[in-house]
């Protein structure tokens, strides 16, 4: 009974001894300044070894003015270039090589312009073998090459938009009907007939929020029509900067409509930047003034349903437009018309019908068509890559990945 156990133990000890004898220093070690960063990283790469197994570990040591300290220690079969968030055009070594980023931490700070010495050692039990130390100096970079694909795609989309604008100047472009925007005139007309005001909200965002910009642009178009009907307009705000901008937009709209006297400075007014205090105040306005039409444009959070449900209870015609996808179900449920996502950004072009504006819509549609083609082709390529075990599809797919 004891003999097999004894044999197993002897075989185990012998194989461990034989393996320990095979433990060689990591090969092809390279330590470089971390590319595409602010100069706060070093990158170490080294070749895979026959002993890349969980029972063997790699130790990364960093020498600073305070002496040599261990930065990290990890199993030898982990941390490869292929697992790092890198694209093929920024890989510092072949995908099978080991990859480790050295950043500021307990072992010491990595500062730009200072040379650092890094040692990579293979460790098994008490035994440790180290490669010759390598020195590198981190420095900041002027371009993040990991974002090259992003830049190319933005330039491509920008080019498509500008070509579409030029095309729109030469020939008329078809715009599909957007019921929510067709209803703007109906809503304003109804308010005029009833002699009640129109309530327009620009959302929770500040002026740097694209949806607030879109909402304030639409306000200009709505205000122009409101001015021509001489209906009251109420625009309560959460952000004083948005209020100032919207005041100017509204004023200009009244001027363009030829009704400068009808403009009221107080039509745009500030309430508070507190979410629920603002909601309570606007709900109060809805219940007291009973606007005939409510417009909810821009971005919204938990206040969306509190606002729209109160508006619905007053019997007002309600038109919403938002890119807050998490609030869309509430708007769809409680409003008569909802501009979903991109329709908010299309509203300005739809209402103005200016060729330049309409051209950008065509550009967006072409952009969407391009994304659809990429999604289809990408799915196909990824599937083919897995089936035939080829790496070349990854070179194409990487180009459409988000790499920071």
């Amino acid at each position: 009974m004891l003999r097999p156990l004894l044999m197993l133990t002897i075989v185990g000890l012998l194989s461990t001894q034989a393996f320990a004898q095979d433990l060689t220093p990591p090969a092809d070690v390279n330590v470089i300044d971390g590319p595409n960063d602010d100069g706060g990283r070093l990158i170490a790469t080294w070749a895979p070894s026959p002993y890349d197994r969980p029972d063997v570990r790699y130790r990364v040591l960093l020498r600073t003015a305070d002496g040599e300290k261990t930065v990290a220690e990890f199993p030898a079969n982990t941390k490869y270039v292929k697992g790092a968030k890198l694209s093929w055009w920024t890989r510092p070594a072949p995908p099978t090589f080991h990859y480790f980023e050295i950043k500021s931490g307990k072992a010491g700070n990595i500062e730009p312009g200072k040379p650092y010495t890094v040692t990579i050692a293979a460790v098994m039990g008490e035994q440790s073998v180290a490669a010759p130390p390598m020195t590198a100096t981190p420095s900041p970079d002027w371009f993040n090459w990991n974002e090259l694909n992003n830049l190319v795609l933005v330039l491509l989309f920008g080019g498509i938009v500008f070509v579409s604008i030029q095309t729109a100047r030469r020939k008329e472009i078809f715009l599909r009907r957007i019921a929510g925007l067709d209803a703007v005139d109906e809503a304003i007309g109804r308010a005029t007939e009833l002699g009640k005001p129109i309530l327009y909200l620009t959302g929770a965002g500040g002026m740097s929020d694209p949806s607030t910009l879109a909402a304030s642009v639409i306000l200009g178009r709505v205000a122009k029509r409101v001015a021509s009907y001489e209906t009251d307009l109420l625009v309560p705000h959460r952000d004083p900067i948005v209020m100032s901008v919207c005041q100017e937009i509204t004023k200009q709209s009244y001027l363009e409509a030829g009704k400068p006297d009808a403009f009221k400075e107080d039509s745009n007014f500030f309430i508070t930047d507190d979410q629920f205090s603002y909601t309570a105040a606007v709900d109060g306005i809805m219940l007291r003034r009973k606007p005939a039409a409510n417009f909810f444009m821009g971005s919204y959070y938990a206040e969306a349903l509190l606002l729209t449900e109160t508006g619905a209870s007053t019997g007002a015609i309600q038109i919403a437009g938002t890119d807050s996808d998490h609030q869309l179900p509430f708007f769809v449920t409680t409003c008569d018309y909802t501009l979903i996502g991109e329709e908010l950004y299309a509203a300005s072009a739809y209402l103005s019908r200016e060729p330049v504006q309409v051209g950008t819509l065509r550009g967006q549609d072409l952009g969407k068509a391009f994304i659809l083609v990429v999604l289809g082709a990408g799915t196909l390529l990824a599937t083919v890559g897995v089936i035939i075990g080829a790496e070349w599809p990854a070179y194409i797919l990487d180009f459409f990945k988000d790499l920071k």
Partner: protein
Amino acid sequence: MNFLRRQLPLFITFITGVVFALQYYIPHPISETLLTEVSKWLQIVGGFALVLGISSLFHIHFVKIRRHEPGWGYSFVLYAGIVGTLIAAFGYSAAAGAWVNGKETINGVTTAFGWVYSYTMVPLQATMFALLAFFIASAAYRSFRARSPEAALLLVAAVIVMIGRVPLGEYLIPALGGLTEWIMGVLNSSVRRAILIGVSLGTVALSLKIIFGIERSYLGGGRE
């Protein structure tokens, strides 16, 4: 005058738009410092703009009180609330024996300002948020009335998700857990992503229009 009102703002928009679009691609510390500095400027401008906002608020409600417009009593309450809170925030606390200076507690003693915040502001905000549950119920009732095939489909999906998301529902009908995950992970996610792709393209297109001066109505008015 036209230069100050139109050309100069458009020029500033173009320069800052291009600089901060490029800033995204530049990891150099100078780029990061620029972003941090401008963010601070924005906070300072925002602080000054708050004066505009508060003056607008005071003006509107002052006019309402002066003209005795319907509901002018609420405007009076607003004035009393603001002035009372300001006095509580910057007055002298006899209990604590010190000036409040916007502190909620001084040496463990709750100030009048702290009391206003804890026993007025917080409960009122909680009340507003709690109302959401009732509003969701009434909105759900309205949308789940199966008056059309689409509404019926919505009702069925909602019932499956609601039952599948609670432990008891999944315990009673185990299949609903997987079905709920499928509805949320496949049907719901795909539609959300489609919306987000459209929103992203719209955002980029709007940004390009503003940076290159194609959309300029945010300056107040259309083309000249």
